[in-house]
């Protein structure tokens, strides 16, 4: 039975984790269809190999031991004078939200930041290495690193380890030669300099939005509003994105971090105004809202 990995995406996929340990490269959980295999799996798996989820109360909870993945929505946008980076804050292990307030926008140098998506472990290790190299580079150069150099270092790591890594990154920063720049580095290690970049699983929902809403030469205000709106829209539709919206604005003056909790975000289609409790609605005196 061993290594069966079938992606079933009609509904929340169930998973048994005994075979997962063999899938070395899986950053996203590869759910194992239980169905009829459940009976056979139990008889085949050794008791030493059994996962922590020994007694599956409900098969739909998935694998809590799955590798941490930041499903994510990440965005980088240039504007007249700098860049704005934005991200959601959800890190998940399978279907469980391991961290609802993560910080996916990581500092590489004072003037260059990185948005991380995909495998949490892979993106962290890449950012750690690049920060280390850039630190030395800055000392040797005697001045702040350019965004291009930072981006290329990231590319080297992503490209040369493409078989082992599963992380999509967006580099954004400001330097005195080129001003604000955004570089997108998706899965295989391609490097693309872009006026704006989107990444992560939530970005699927934003391609149309950016086609319509993106404009050249925005002001800082406009760019920040665009980023917040976009991340918020993606959070509304992507199960792997959620939590708060974080933005980092980088320009000649420096770096500003902003934090937008859920209540500061607009409501989208079919979303309702949050309440404290049903009891408040009931006591508001509207003729009996509870219907048979």
């Amino acid at each position, binding site marked *: 039975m061993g290594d069966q990995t079938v992606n079933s995406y009609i509904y929340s996929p169930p998973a048994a984790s005994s075979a997962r340990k063999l899938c070395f490269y899986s950053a996203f959980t590869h759910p194992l269809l239980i169905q*009829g295999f459940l009976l056979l799996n139990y008889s085949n798996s050794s008791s030493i190999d059994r996962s922590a989820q020994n007694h599956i109360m*409900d098969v739909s909870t998935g694998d809590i031991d799955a590798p941490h993945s*930041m499903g994510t929505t990440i965005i980088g946008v240039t504007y007249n004078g700098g860049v704005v980076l934005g991200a959601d804050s959800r890190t998940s292990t399978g279907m469980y*939200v391991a961290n609802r*307030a993560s910080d996916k926008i990581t*500092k590489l140098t004072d003037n260059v930041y990185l948005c991380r998506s995909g495998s949490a472990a892979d993106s962290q290790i890449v950012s750690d290495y690049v920060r280390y190299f850039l630190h030395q580079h800055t000392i040797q150069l005697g001045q702040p690193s350019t965004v291009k150099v930072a981006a290329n270092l990231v590319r080297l790591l992503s490209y040369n380890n493409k078989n082992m890594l599963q992380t999509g990154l967006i580099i954004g920063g400001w330097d005195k030669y080129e001003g604000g720049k955004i570089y997108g580095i998706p899965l295989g290690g391609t490097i693309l300099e872009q006026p704006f970049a989107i990444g992560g699983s939530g970005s699927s929902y934003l391609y149309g939005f950016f086609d319509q809403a993106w404009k050249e030469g925005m002001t800082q205000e406009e760019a920040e509003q665009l980023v917040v709106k976009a991340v918020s829209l993606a959070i*509304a*539709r992507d199960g792997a994105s959620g939590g708060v919206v974080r933005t980092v604005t980088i320009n000649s003056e420096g770096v500003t971090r902003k934090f937008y909790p859920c209540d500061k975000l607009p409501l989208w289609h079919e979303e309702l105004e949050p309440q404290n409790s049903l009891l408040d609605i009931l006591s508001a005196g509207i003729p009996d809202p509870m219907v048979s």
Partner: protein
Amino acid sequence: MGGSYGSTLRYKSVERLKPVGKHSLIGASGEISDFQEIMRYLDDLILSDNMWDDGNSLGPKEVHNYLTRVMYNRRNKFNPLWNSLVLGGVKNGQKYLGTVSMIGVHYEDNHVATGFGNHLARPLLRDEWRENLTFEEGVILLEKCMRVLLYRDRSAVNKLQIAKITEEGVTISPPYSLKTFWNFSAFENPTHGAEGSW
């Protein structure tokens, strides 16, 4: 009220609580098409029961047992109905609450849950449930559980309904959203001093 399609939150107003007959309410998680099929089976069941016209009506215990048989037999044929169901009701003053899973595991208890609720809500309920809760206290407790699930379950959407079953019958609230809390100082700058962490 969410209906996911893989990791996409595709449908945001799916009604997953439905009354069954006069005395019961069913709540479902999992495959929506299978839930709709189950509702057809239940409607047929209730109809046949009414056709006897003998003054008797199926109570929650009976409906739960029927569902258990259906789910277990489908599982035996390697063609399960991919749902976890909660069945509650009141008949002749007797309260009943039970659950059935897609493989036919069934039991009754004072508090039950499906999916992530088993891991996140049941511990809360074990601590805070007690006999003779009022409706208001029950709502507060359930909302506490639902809020945790909203934070920690990727397939959750912020829209829910609460249903109340008494001897008089079943009532279901209109859909509403819960406030969530993000304004902790620890959330504002979590990587301060530990760049690259989360």
